[in-house]
């Protein structure tokens, strides 16, 4: 079973790593954000699979932190992306 | 007794931390209260080291190295601890006029920042002097950088902000390179304790590369030519009190660490060729820095370029120590000469920057050509500048003379007479730029100079006191200099 989980982890990681192409190439900022987000989700899945396969429960906590902070970084990216001037709401 | 070095570090750390919530006025009073205690601690440490002729060792948390961290106050630490405490105290009293907060007055930005930064700087330097662990020293380096950077741009003008950014980039690059070396050394030797490393390191590629990148990083922080570009704008743009600390002490912090690396960690592995290169850079710094100072039209920049040159002297000790391992007398002279140079330059340069600050404040500018009338209006300030200048030139009997004479005789003793020529040439050039300032100041002036106030008297007193110390060091009996030899790993018989 650990072998299967490790292989699955490798595959997930391989898949999302290929998705990195979108971070590199864009073309739009939205694409880069999406690819980074996919990398985050894939990283979380990889950590969970490896953690189960190697009996390291602490990796679940790493995944937990990653999930929290990836959400945080994603919204920061989404609102920072350079865009037209009408995007920002006026400060109250 | 073993606790003293720990207290010398933790006292300013605690004061710095507590100063933040206390606010500007509370921080100022806390600093002034802590200063005498810190000074007393340093003096007691120096006396103990001198009397016992042995370094003070202290294991934090009872954990001995390599697992734990040790403090080790040797003669070099003791001499520099006292120097630091005196300079910090003088600067603090000097700075009250600029950064003081009257009772009931609203808190000002500069006042809030200055006191914790001063305390942090003091803590960082003391840490760099007594810590015996390469990573703890890294934290000390970062503490020093963080404390020094805002001092550079305390006045908030665009030029000083640019100088601060440039300084920060150099400093960050320097510390990350140092950290890289720490990683390699740990990988090679399994400890970061300097005393243990001395026994464990060999001239293996990992160690050599580590020392190379650490040296490069520390040179950037010490501003040895050609990595000096950040220094003149940074030191000249800061407020006088901050300039004094930056030039007198901050660049010494990384220099002392360099000494610990070369003659602590690597004591058993001499690197004569690399030492020649370092001294070559030092010699170039002495000559080019002095020439730049000679041609400078602004007083504070002149003093800053003088720092570039005087730092060069410090590096002349490297080949003299590395060349003749057998002849300990020459090595001892070189070591003492280098350390006395560091100490006397600290006093002289702090005095000089404070004097320059007083002049700049009263004239409203620091153009050297327009300092006429200074001799009549502020004789004490000009006298301070002159005394500090004498020490920098190496005119007997001054601290600078003692340092340069020791280095000179070590150079001749080691058969490396060319460094002696550099020392003499540098002295002449120094005389040139000091003379320029004095000559301009002694001319009868055109513009009216504002009257002096009690504040000026106190400030003049502090600057003059530092200048007098830098000269008086030359009157010390040579035996007193034996202090800096204590615990020096490769010089101990």
């Amino acid at each position, binding site marked *: 079973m650990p072998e299967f989980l490790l292989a699955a982890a490798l595959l997930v990681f391989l898949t999302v790593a290929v998705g990195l192409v979108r971070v590199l190439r864009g073309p739009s900022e939205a694409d880069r954000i999406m690819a980074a987000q996919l990398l985050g989700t894939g990283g979380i899945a990889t950590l969970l699979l490896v953690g189960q396969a190697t009996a390291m429960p602490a990796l679940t906590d790493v995944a937990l932190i990653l999930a929290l902070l990836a959400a945080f970084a994603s919204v920061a990216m989404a609102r920072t992306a350079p865009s037209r001037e009408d995007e920002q709401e006026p400060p109250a | 007794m073993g606790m003293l070095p720990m207290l010398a570090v933790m006292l300013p750390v605690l004061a710095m931390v507590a100063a933040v919530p206390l606010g500007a006025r509370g921080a100022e009073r806390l600093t002034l209260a802590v200063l005498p205690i810190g000074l007393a601690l340093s003096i007691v440490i120096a006396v103990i080291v001198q009397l016992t002729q042995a370094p003070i060792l202290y294991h934090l948390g009872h954990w001995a190295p390599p697992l734990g961290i040790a403090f080790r106050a040797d003669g070099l630490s003791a001499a520099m601890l006292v120097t630091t405490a005196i300079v910090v105290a003088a600067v603090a009293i000097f700075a009250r006029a600029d950064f003081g907060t009257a009772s009931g007055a609203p808190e000002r930005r500069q006042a809030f920042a200055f006191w914790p930064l001063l305390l942090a700087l003091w803590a960082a330097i003391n840490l760099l002097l007594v810590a015996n662990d390469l*990573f703890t020293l890294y934290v000390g380096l970062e503490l020093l950088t*963080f404390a020094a950077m805002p001092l550079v741009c305390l006045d908030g003008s665009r030029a000083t902000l640019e100088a601060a950014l440039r300084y*920060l980039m150099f400093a960050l690059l320097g510390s990350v390179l140092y950290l890289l070396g720490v990683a390699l050394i740990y*990988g090679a030797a*399994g400890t970061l304790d300097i005393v243990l490393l001395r026994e464990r390191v060999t001239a293996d590629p990992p160690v050599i590369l580590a020392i190379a990148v650490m040296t490069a990083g520390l040179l950037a922080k010490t501003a040895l030519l050609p990595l000096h570009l950040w220094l003149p704008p940074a030191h000249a743009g800061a407020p006088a009190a901050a300039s004094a600390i930056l030039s007198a002490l901050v660049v010494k912090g990384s220099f002392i660490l360099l000494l610990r690396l070369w003659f602590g960690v690597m004591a058993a592995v001499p690197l004569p060729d690399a030492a020649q290169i370092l001294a070559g850079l030092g010699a170039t710094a002495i000559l080019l820095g002095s020439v730049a100072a000679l041609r400078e039209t602004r007083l504070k920049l002149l003093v800053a370029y003088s720092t570039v040159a005087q730092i060069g002297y410090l590096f002349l000790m490297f080949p003299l120590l590395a060349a003749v391992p057998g002849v300990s007398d020459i090595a001892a002279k070189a070591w003492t000469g280098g350390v006395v140079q560091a100490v006397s330059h600290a006093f002289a340069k702090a005095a000089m920057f404070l004097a320059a600050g007083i002049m700049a404040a009263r004239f409203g500018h620091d153009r050297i050509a327009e300092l006429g009338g200074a001799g009549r209006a502020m004789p004490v300030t000009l006298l301070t500048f002159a005394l500090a200048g004498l020490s920098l030139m190496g005119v007997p009997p001054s601290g600078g003379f003692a340092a340069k004479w020791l280095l000179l005789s070590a150079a001749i003793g080691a058969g490396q007479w060319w460094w002696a020529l550099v020392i003499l040439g540098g002295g002449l050039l120094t005389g040139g730029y000091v003379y320029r300032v004095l000559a301009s100041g002694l001319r009868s002036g055109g513009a009216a100079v504002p009257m002096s106030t009690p504040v000026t008297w106190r400030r003049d007193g502090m600057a003059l006191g530092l200048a007098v110390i830098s000269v008086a060091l030359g009157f010390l009996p040579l035996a007193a200099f034996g202090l800096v030899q204590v615990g020096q790993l490769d010089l101990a018989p």
Partner: protein
Amino acid sequence: MTSATLFGLAGAALVGIGLFGMLVRTDPLLRILCFNLLGGGVFLVFGAVARRGAGAGFGGDPVPQAIILTGLVVAFAATALAVALVLRLASAEDKR
């Protein structure tokens, strides 16, 4: 080659990449970013050293691991400081 060595080599390459970026990029913000790339490389070299020191039931030598942890926080503080300075400098621009 062990994976510790592999990551050590990666760290070495990252040091080169980060240092190059710090020296040739002119945008101060990107310089700070490259400082972080460089820092990542240094920490990775340290991490390789820690991994090589595995023993006594630990997957890596805990001492360098703790040092890296401390170093990460210090590097973050340095980054924040540099960013604040860059922003302050940019706003000083308008006033002139």
